[in-house]
């Protein structure tokens, strides 16, 4: 029986879809059977991020309303065997699915897959309730901004109330230089408020945008720092003990060099 993990945040645009895509690809690269579920009904984009948009025939609402069987709606990734997507519906709204249907769907999927990862919509309303209904674990994504952390805190409270205990935190778009200048919340600042286990820190990295726009995932980009961060997080989910990578190494070395040659 596989695990059902929901990726959530409260605030929009912090990196839920990016995280879902990269963890899915990461886990599948380790030979796991993974199903990504786009629960952001009406605003689907996990398929676009994965470059699978043109292969959609049926969607999640077709499955829950009995128009087709799960198997017919699943899209196999073209690059990585083991990775599958259950796309969201674009033309229906969040009320087209209810929490009981989501539970049933997740129970079916976990029989077939090692990991079922659900991309949650922003907000705390129906879409959120649907997305968490069938999950047994949760990953909360935040960026180092006061408003995002506030929403993450709210979400953690709601997850706890829904008996989704011990959610894990991913900090995305972290910028060490800004933190050093005191212009951005540090990992410690966020930990002090949220006080949940840290699963990983993903730096701000334009490679994320570059790969996403091509329908690719940065986790497969060997050279990028954000790819390394997602590979580390993948291994932590698989149970390995991987220390946090040193995000400052690069900038620290550069600034030390610059100082040496008298540029600063």
């Amino acid at each position: 029986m596989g695990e059902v993990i929901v990726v959530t945040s409260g605030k929009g645009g912090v990196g839920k879809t990016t995280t879902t895509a990269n963890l899915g690809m990461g886990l599948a690269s380790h030979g796991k059977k993974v199903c990504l579920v786009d629960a952001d009904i009406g605003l689907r984009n996990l398929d676009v991020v994965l470059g699978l948009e043109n292969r959609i025939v049926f969607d999640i609402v077709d499955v829950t309303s009995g128009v087709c069987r799960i198997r017919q709606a699943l899209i196999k990734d073209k690059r990585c065997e083991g990775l599958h997507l259950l796309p969201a519906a674009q033309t229906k709204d969040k009320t087209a699915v209810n929490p009981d249907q989501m539970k049933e769907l997740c129970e079916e999927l976990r029989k077939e897959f090692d990991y079922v990862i659900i991309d949650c919509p922003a907000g705390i309303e129906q879409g959120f309730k649907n997305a968490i209904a069938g999950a047994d674990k949760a990953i909360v994504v935040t960026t180092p901004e006061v408003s995002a952390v506030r929403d993450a805190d709210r979400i953690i409270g709601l997850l706890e109330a829904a008996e989704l205990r011990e959610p894990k935190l991913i900090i995305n778009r972290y910028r060490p230089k800004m933190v050093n200048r005191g212009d951005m919340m540090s990992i410690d600042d966020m930990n002090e408020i949220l006080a949940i286990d840290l699963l990983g820190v993903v730096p701000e990295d334009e490679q994320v945008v570059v790969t996403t726009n091509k329908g690719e995932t940065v986790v497969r980009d060997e050279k990028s720092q954000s790819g390394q961060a997602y590979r580390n997080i993948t291994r932590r989910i698989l149970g390995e003990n991987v220390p946090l990578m040193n995000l400052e190494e690069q900038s620290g070395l550069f600034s030390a060099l610059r100082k040496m040659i008298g540029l600063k």
Partner: protein
Amino acid sequence: MTKETLFNSTASNPSPGSFPVELEGLVDENTVLVQRTLRSGQSIYHDGNVVILGDVNPGAEVVASGNIIVMGSLRGVVHAGAKGDTNAIILAFRLRPTQLRIGNHITRPPEDESSDPDYPELARIKNGVVTIETFNSVIR
């Protein structure tokens, strides 16, 4: 009154609600204990005292007609003496509220964060203004 005397008096008095005459007025039964952190969007309203074994995060709210004690960081909004009791106090291990109210007095912390001390502090009304002082176990 030490802890010990309170303990002894309740222990020797099996029927709850009755205390030796000399302790009446000092003993308040109407206190709730919250054994977790209050996160953003969560709130507690209580007619009596509230003790929180955890933090009160930004976006959380505690309103009590009596005193509020936070055994952790208080960063949200608190209102003690919410029914007008200006003798109510607010005590926290780390007192950093978004907004602090006692009775009908409303205060905000000063703009500069640099002076945040890392020891327990007590807020109460003295001579008509809310004052913050170091907590050193002698309350009144």
